[in-house]
């Protein structure tokens, strides 16, 4: 096993492109090291990206926010502007693992680990986040929901690295929220989760909405029909009922050690409804 710590992103891309065996990118390591310790993978090359300039920064730009690939989730919670603009994304990132894990883990790592139950992903999908990808073929920007393609699988090509996650500048009267269900209070994996992102008009009517569900299919689901249930409405009971029903119907869950199909369907609806109410309140809706 070879461990390297390149100082530039180009060098990192070059090393990954040139590697012959299994290569892994190390940022926080909260998934990678666990998998290595458990004997599930034995990478021949480990590329530590933490020393690369700019990757550990959250930058506020004219377009919005750029969150570097090596920024630990705990740092998201300490960025006041980000917290105000995207509270749902921040609360999702701050649910990963434990306090100690949050000091290491990153949202890019969470995305690239490609678990359908990843906490930050439904919130990012709902937030319309994009991933800035750099690779041997240059740079491209893609929606985050196109990164994971199945459990443990991503659309990234050999040599490609996600450099940063990009979030839009916030429109007025917007709010987002994320909720997950776990049997414990913390240090757990989502059995079901829901991220909701809303923008209201001046009358408090939902103008734009995105609803994403986690742990109910092979990848995080962006449920457009659920967004449609909210658009043009205030958070009235009928709209919320419709939202819950659509979300339950959109799930393609499995029975496993963490929950049953029936449980996931039902709770997906409940969480979407609760997250929508929180997002609505955050957007200033009454």
């Amino acid at each position, binding site marked *: 096993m070879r461990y390297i710590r390149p100082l530039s992103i180009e060098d990192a891309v070059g090393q990954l492109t040139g590697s012959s065996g299994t290569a892994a990118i190390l940022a926080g390591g909260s998934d990678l090291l666990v998998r290595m310790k*458990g*004997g599930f993978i034995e990478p021949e090359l480990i590329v530590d990206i933490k020393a690369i300039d700019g990757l550990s920064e959250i930058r506020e730009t004219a377009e919005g926010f750029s969150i570097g690939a090596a920024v630990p989730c705990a740092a998201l919670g300490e960025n006041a502007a980000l917290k105000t603009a995207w509270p749902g994304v921040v609360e999702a990132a701050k649910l990963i693992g434990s306090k100690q894990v949050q000091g290491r883990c990153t949202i890019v790592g969470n995305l690239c680990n490609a678990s359908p139950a990843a906490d930050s992903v439904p919130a990012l999908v709902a937030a319309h986040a994009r991933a800035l990808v750099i690779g041997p073929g240059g740079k491209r920007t893609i929606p985050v929901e196109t990164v994971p393609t199945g459990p443990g699988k991503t659309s990234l090509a050999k040599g490609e690295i996600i450099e940063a996650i990009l979030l839009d500048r916030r429109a007025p009267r917007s709010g987002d929220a994320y909720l997950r*269900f776990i*049997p*414990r*209070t*913390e*240090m*757990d*994996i989502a*059995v079901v989760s829901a991220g909701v992102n809303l923008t209201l008009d001046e009358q408090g009517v939902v103008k734009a909405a995105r609803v994403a569900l986690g742990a109910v299919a092979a990848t995080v689901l962006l449920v457009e029909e659920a967004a449609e249930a909210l658009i043009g409405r205030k958070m009235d009971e009928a709209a919320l009922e419709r939202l819950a029903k659509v979300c339950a119907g959109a799930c393609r869950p499995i029975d*496993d*050690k*963490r*929950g*049953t199909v*029936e*449980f996931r369907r*039902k*709770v997906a609806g*409940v*969480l979407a409804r609760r997250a929508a109410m929180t997002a609505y309140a955050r957007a200033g809706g009454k």
Partner: protein
Amino acid sequence: MNFDPRYSGRNFTSVGTRPIRPDGVDKVTGRARYGADFNMAGQLVGRVLRSPHAHATIRKIDTSKAEKLPGVKAVITAADLPDLTDGDAAMYDILDNCMARKKALYDGHAVAAVAAVDARIARQALKLIEVDYEVLPHVTDVDEAMKHTAPLLNDAIFTEGLEEKPVKPSNVTKRTQYGHGDIHEGFGQADFVVERSFKTEQTHQGYIEPHACVANVSSDGTADLWVCTQGHFVYRQHCAQLLGMEASKLRVTSSEIGGGFGGKTHVWAEPVALALSRKAGRPVKLVMTRDEVFRASGPTSATSIDVKIGARKDGTITAAEATLRYSCGPYAGMWAEIGAMTAFACYRLENVKTVGYEVLVNRPKTAAYRAPSAPMAAFAVESAIDELAKEIDMDPVEFRIRNAAQEGTRSSYGPVYGPIGIGPTLEAAKNHPHMKAPLGKNQGRGMACGFWFNFGGQTCTDLNIGMDGSVSLAVGTVDVGGSRASLSLVAAEELGIAYEQVKAVVADTSSLGYNDMTDGSRGTFSSSMATISAARNAIKVLRERAAQMWDISVDDVAWEQGHAVAKGEKHGNLGKLSLKEIAAESGKTGGPIAGHSELVADGAGVSFATHICDIEVDPETGATKVLRYTVVQDAGKAVHPTYVEGQYQGGAAQGIGWALNEEYIYGKDGRLQNAGFLDYRIPVCSDLPMIDTQILEIPNPNHPYGVRGVGETSIVPPLAAIANAVSNAAGVRMTHIPMSPPRILAAIEAERAG
């Protein structure tokens, strides 16, 4: 030996105080040495190859490729642990569990092991071992395993305890029955009868420290073993017998222990480490991973229990019956029998019958888990008791008080009780402010009682007085719950000296006589008895030495508050001699001063508890929150009340985990799906409320200070107390433990659907 263990009401100076624990500083600073903290020069890394199949015949094992890998120093299979058990069936089962002989009987069953110069090579070597399995049909569910069509784990097993010897082999190893009276007559007198069936899933003790040991077998045939265990003398006996050694040639030293709860009373890795060391000629360190701990140590039984209880309108129980089926893993056990004994132990019953069935399944061998078997039986019985109280329209506490066992009651398992604490714990619970606290929406309150036998057993203790007057106490019961502090308090009390003057250690197997292990809540009960006895023997010597120093008859020397006092008119002018002064002169008066004790601590007083808890249920998701929890338990005499409270809280915490989320989940392939703390959900700190405790002291007549064991009873009521609380909060009776959110939500939805 002339030792009087009877209770004598006395006033205490040290016992009952709360000094800081002697093992505390080392534990919080990381200096304490646990199982994996011991290392030797030249030690090898041991690793175990485990069956990926739930049930398979082992046709052949080829270790030749692994043996050729550079850095591998030994590879062993069952052939390296020949059967020396000489017809001892229980020992043969231990041997077969340590290393599968003909069949792998569960996912995780050890089939081979290696010792190599480092972990990487050891892991590689495991991959080079070729095992030819013939996969067999398996069964992991206790009810399925009892069916005639179930795959048989062992075709040499014919159910014992039936009226007629069966002609066909079965997975049921034994039927047992307890009780008295005539239940048919009793149910005939009942105005109300409740009959219900319950299930509980298999749980693990969840100790934070995995099993770990270092084995060093010398070429002269002697050996040392450093190990994390609840009973190093028992480990010595088992390992010596399995390896064909004389017990005295194997010296076992116990490490600090990061939790055991009954799970460290059985050998698994230790005989394997010794066999590897013997073959390699070097020390071998073997540390289980968490995955191995879950798959291949000893969890508790999964159960299936039917309960039927009848009562008259006035609230008197007329008859009680239970059928209990407990999984044992692949080897015979007596887990259902203990369940059958404890099920109705809290009550005064004229007509009672319990039947237990021990059931073999393709799961790891069941081991003891804190009051083993009692929590599941209590869950079933106390749930039915609650329902019966509801049917009669009586308050559940009043109903239990009305039927509680008392001094003189013939228990459901046979013996007649002496002074016991079930009535007082119920009265205390009834009067506790918790019982009257208001409840909000979706909240429910539950309460339940629990019983545990407690155990005494063989105990040996040395008390040595140094020339500076300080006292070394060497005990043979491993300190799992703070017994070094408690025993130091007892030695200080008996000698009349300060707690700080006493230092207690756990001695190795070559330094003391045999001690049973720390189980059955016996550690402080039995070793305090032995410590009192040893101290009294030392006092006898101290009096003799004082008599010599004064040149008077020993009959005229009394021991009072840490001093020798000359009695009688003619000695009235002699000043008293302190323990320190006598010790300083010991070199001239006959040499070192010591007190020794070996005894069988009979008369462990039975123990009862009543728990109360409040739960909130989210009716939309089935999520639960424990809002408040109160433990009331009889301690006999709390030697160190802080430790006693810790035992009460710890049992409740484990019970909460068991009741709400913990369970072994097997796939259709018979493999364990959640062999780790991520998906085997023990509670984290924020899952628990502050657990309130109330210590009652109803003295045990068979202990000089009235002490009863306190460690186990606290896990008996929680499953039932929480089930009653959840059932009250959710408005539907929960009959399957753990009450995980999917189970609760499904029950609520089913109730709504009618």
